[in-house]
């Protein structure tokens, strides 16, 4: 599978990152099998979070077995120094590893949060101490929210080495600033910050829960995903062709193999074909940034 430099981290990530939230929906044996399956395709970048149910615990056994093959991303929604330290310790324990390669501020949504994490008692102080102690190697940030806020974060956090944000044809086809994640991609590229794409496979928002309860949704994603193999392939190719370092799979395990296949076969997408995908999705509603879930 193609690899690309993750900004200045020195790590070359595969063009697909395994979003380990998929493990949350499996029993341990199935989780083990899925991790082996993902590794068989050559994927070398995994991403997990304490908010993904028990995905950290289920990733643990195979992560420890294959620790050298996996660049491990994890994250915290804590915004304070104390909280970030507490969550980092907890994730290290639950994963059963001595170090997390990329530790990320998770789900930045509001200006106040950015002020808080960058303050003296903010989470980033804890991140930097953890880095000095060798518990993490790199600092990143994720957001499903306002692209302008991510741009501010890129400008204000000098040691930021990766950003994770939504990118798909629906948002690329819209001109309003609230969908302008392309500006985030461009600024990150300028600053040589790695870029991780989420929601590449978003087909739209789910109906309200009173119309379709979460338990009845056919896929365990925050959004309604595209599901046909040719659509999955097209969405993967589109996202990878925008220049992201890596594209993260949709969170439902039923979709992972199709995305692995698309990633393994990725060989670019020309501009006319990219425009074709945008044109088809141009009038669709976007599940981001309105639907702010992690």
């Amino acid at each position: 599978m193609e690899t690309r430099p993750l900004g200045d981290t020195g790590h070359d990530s595969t063009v697909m990152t395994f979003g380990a939230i998929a493990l949350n929906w499996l029993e341990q044996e199935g989780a083990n099998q899925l991790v082996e399956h993902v590794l068989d395709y050559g994927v070398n970048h995994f991403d997990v979070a304490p908010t993904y149910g028990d995905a950290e615990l289920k990733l643990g056994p195979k992560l420890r077995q294959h620790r050298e093959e996996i660049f491990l991303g994890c994250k915290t929604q804590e915004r304070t120094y104390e909280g970030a330290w507490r969550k980092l310790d907890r994730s290290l324990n639950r994963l059963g590893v001595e170090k997390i390669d990329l530790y990320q501020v998770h789900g930045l949504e509001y200006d106040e949060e950015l002020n808080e994490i960058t303050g003296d008692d903010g989470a980033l102080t804890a991140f930097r101490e953890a880095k000095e102690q060798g518990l993490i190697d790199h600092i990143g940030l994720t957001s499903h929210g306002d692209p302008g806020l991510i741009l501010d974060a890129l400008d204000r956090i000098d040691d930021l080495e990766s950003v994770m944000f939504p990118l798909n044809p629906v948002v690329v086809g819209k001109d309003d600033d609230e969908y302008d994640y392309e500006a985030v991609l461009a600024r990150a590229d300028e600053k040589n910050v790695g870029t991780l794409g989420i929601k590449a496979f978003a087909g739209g928002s789910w109906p309200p829960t009173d119309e379709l309860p979460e338990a009845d949704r056919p896929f365990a994603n925050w959004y309604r995903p595209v599901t046909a193999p040719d659509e999955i392939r097209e969405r993967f190719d589109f996202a990878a062709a925008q220049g992201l370092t890596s594209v993260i799979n949709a969170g439902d395990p039923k979709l992972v193999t199709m995305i692995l296949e698309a990633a393994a076969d990725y060989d670019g997408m020309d501009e006319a074909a990219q425009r074709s995908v945008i044109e088809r999705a141009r009038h669709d509603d976007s599940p981001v940034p309105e639907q702010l879930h992690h």
Partner: protein
Amino acid sequence: MDVPDTVATALDDRPVTGRRCLEAGAGVGNATAGLLANGADRVYAVTNDRDHARTTRRRVADSGGDGSGGDGTDRGNDADRLAVLEADLRSIPLPDGSVDLITAHGVCNVLDPAALTAVAEELSRVAAPGAHLVVDDYDPLPDGAAIGELFAVENAASELARCRPALTFYPAAFLRRFFAGHNWEFDRERTLLEPVPWTESHVSAHADEAASMAAECPGEAGDALSATARGLATEIGSESVGRMYSLAFRRPG
């Protein structure tokens, strides 16, 4: 105001800022939106369809554009820079040599050869010396394209009802030579879409159009064409096939 990527791509190497522009055949005003966003001094959106004229006006009015797009200079409100003219493209109500840039975005395919000739003559008349012309359209569909069958039915209904085809897909090479024959110097060609996404709403709109014209046809032929069009639309759903191209020309200075 969302400007489709096709329009943005077709205009991105054209000098729009500060120019007097003409959108020939404003449908929903996509090229008009692109021209205003790129800093056109004035845009004349010409259409003979009242609904299209209304849509274009409303779209620009609703955008609340402040005219600061393009080069960042204040060019006044978008609506103040737009004139929607309800007129036939074969008789454009503008003086000779009065526009600097013309777009024909997805227009040629609805002009039969005779109409295309008349329109090309009129576009050439209103173009100022040194003016630019951007022609965006579709290559003929490849054999086996399902949507091609629907277009064939639409054309058959149109021929019976109005004695002319509804759609003519001119190859890029043909329009290149054609406009050269009207004293336009070829500048460049680029592919805008490949494949072209014919969405469910496109397919449904063409089926409606075919059925509407079939209703004007006498007897059983009309009924059969209408039923075929509806059936094909259901069967096709949506299809991505074919190529949309952009040609750019320059009027000798």
